[in-house]
């Protein structure tokens, strides 16, 4: 994905929620934010590779 199309707080939020559910434990906002960055990096990287 082109990073210009990323909207913080919307893009990748579903993946973040799935990660939180699969994790099985309540998470701090800091941990969630770090994971969100990982998800966004992945989304941008996948598109770049394609």
């Amino acid at each position: 994905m082109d990073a210009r199309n990323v909207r913080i707080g919307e893009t990748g939020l579903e993946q973040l929620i799935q990660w939180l559910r699969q994790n099985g434990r309540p998470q701090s906002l800091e941990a969630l934010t770090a994971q969100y960055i990982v998800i966004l990096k992945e989304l941008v990287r996948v598109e770049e590779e394609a």
Partner: protein
Amino acid sequence: MAVHPGGTQQLEFAGSTEEQTLARRVFEIMTGQGSLAARDALIRQSLDNLAAYLAAQDNTLAEQLAPRIEAAISANSDVFKREERDGTVIVSTSRRGASSGRQPDRRHTFAQRLYEPVKPLPVEDINNIVTTIRPPLTTVEPVQISNYWRALAGQAPLEVDLVVPTAETPVEAPAEEAPVPAAEAPAMATPAVVEPEPAVEATPQPTVPQPVPVQRPVAPRPAVSLTTVLLSDGTAVDLKRPVDDLMAEFGAALQAEVAAAFSEDPLRRVVSFGAQYYSADALPNFGKNDLRRIRDYIIEQAEPMPDVSILSDVYRERPGTNSFEVFRFGLNYRLSRERDFEFVGMEGLSLWSAKGLPAIGSKRVKASDLGQFYSFQVEGFDETEPSTDGTVSHYLTPFEWEYGVLAMNAAFASIMPQPLLPEQRSAALRIEAPQHYSTYLAEVRFPTVNRGGWIWGLEDFFREYLVPGTLITLSATEEANGFTIAYEEIGGVEEKLLHFEEKRNRFVFMPVTYYAAVDEDLLPSQRRYGKLRNLKPLPMNDRKKTDVVLEHVFETMGEQLGTKEEPMYWIQFNELHLAITVLRPMSRAYLEYLLGQDPAFYADEATVGAYYYKPAPKAEEPDDTVDDEDLDDDE
């Protein structure tokens, strides 16, 4: 086909005469049986029953009659339907004489109407359209919205501003700008393509002015790459950088974005309690019975209980198990949404109070009154400094001693727990007095915008072991809500001290033997401050009126230097402050402020720290309410 007198149709049956007769009799029997059924509804009866009934009427055998009935039915297949179920022949018809029932009308069902209204309302905000159906696969669909609409919605882009032209301010023609390379344009800050409008004569138009994008001086655009995203405040974040770097530099802003995304999610898929977040649909369910059990448990324990104790004692959930943290989060989240429960915990210790639990603190003064008494603290008249070592020392005032309260000033606030939830009102404390091996359940009430905070619940300890003027030391412990209170013990000292006699609603001096080191200047003793007994225990509402309290204390404690017609009172500041703190809390800074606000109070230039009070002349009143000062009270 003739019309039946009852409104139904008279049927004509086919077949031989006997078959027609039999068919009519069968029809009458079946429609009589289903007389309350709908005209279209099928009425069913077994052939055996019909044969038995008719045979009984005709005095024949049912076995002989059954084939004849079946033949009559077969001859009138448009009226009767024959079917076999488990070897039994079933005959069906309806009151209108049809062999089949009405087919349901599925052209526009109720279920369809729910989702596909005939006249749908216009969609003003797409965010308000909520569906509980989730797509099986997650798709990322960026929403492209032009800057024109963003600007109208208040999300103005960086370089473009909107100006509503008026008749007095002619519209500036936008200057042409060199096109920006697409690769450098940021995703959300891309300026709208401003079409160069033809030069417009500045002629006032009668129509409503329309917003027109106008260029303003463009700031240098940061060069951004294809891996750079923009936060809502325009900050560029390059996702190529390591996660730790991004968290260190943009952590706060990114956390705010994520928290906002969760709170604005219309499906509320993620919920939070304190600083923890979890998926809403994976939480354990706590029903009404669970809440009742938890409430009964807390009331039985007679004090606010931590979540861990509730889980272990009520649900046998032990820390360390896989599900414990989720269970704990679910419990806290559920209780936080119930009116019968109140969170009185802090970071690291979730304490829950329940409706019906005895209130902490004095019953002799209302929380609303204390909040107003201590409002001077949030108005900037707090003269204390935050503690740096977790310990605060403080001299008790008479009011604090009387009601067992302490001000939530900057000093005490620095060692007290902070509220965990946004609208948290209070937190439960456990204050231990090691000198007496006793523990007191206390409560800190957090300040609000216009009400001060305080700590209460120490009434028994103060009145049993201390006197006003004692220097107490409150220290934080390793426990989140644990504190110790201490004071310097001395040999017994006997003194006549001010005491509020509630039954007679007056102040008196009573002999007391105390064992705590005190500041003599702050001890309301008869020896030093004999006039204190003349103070009136004003109603709490009057004590909130600082002018009433000031005037009363001046008139009671001050030296009358004027005449009866033109009285003038003189008092030392320290004595004035002590007397006021008998009636209500007040910092010295606040008292100085009040004295400077009213010209009736003014400093004695000849004596440092002394003040005059010269009341405005009043109309003559019968003088029957003033108590004479009494220095020789032996009570």
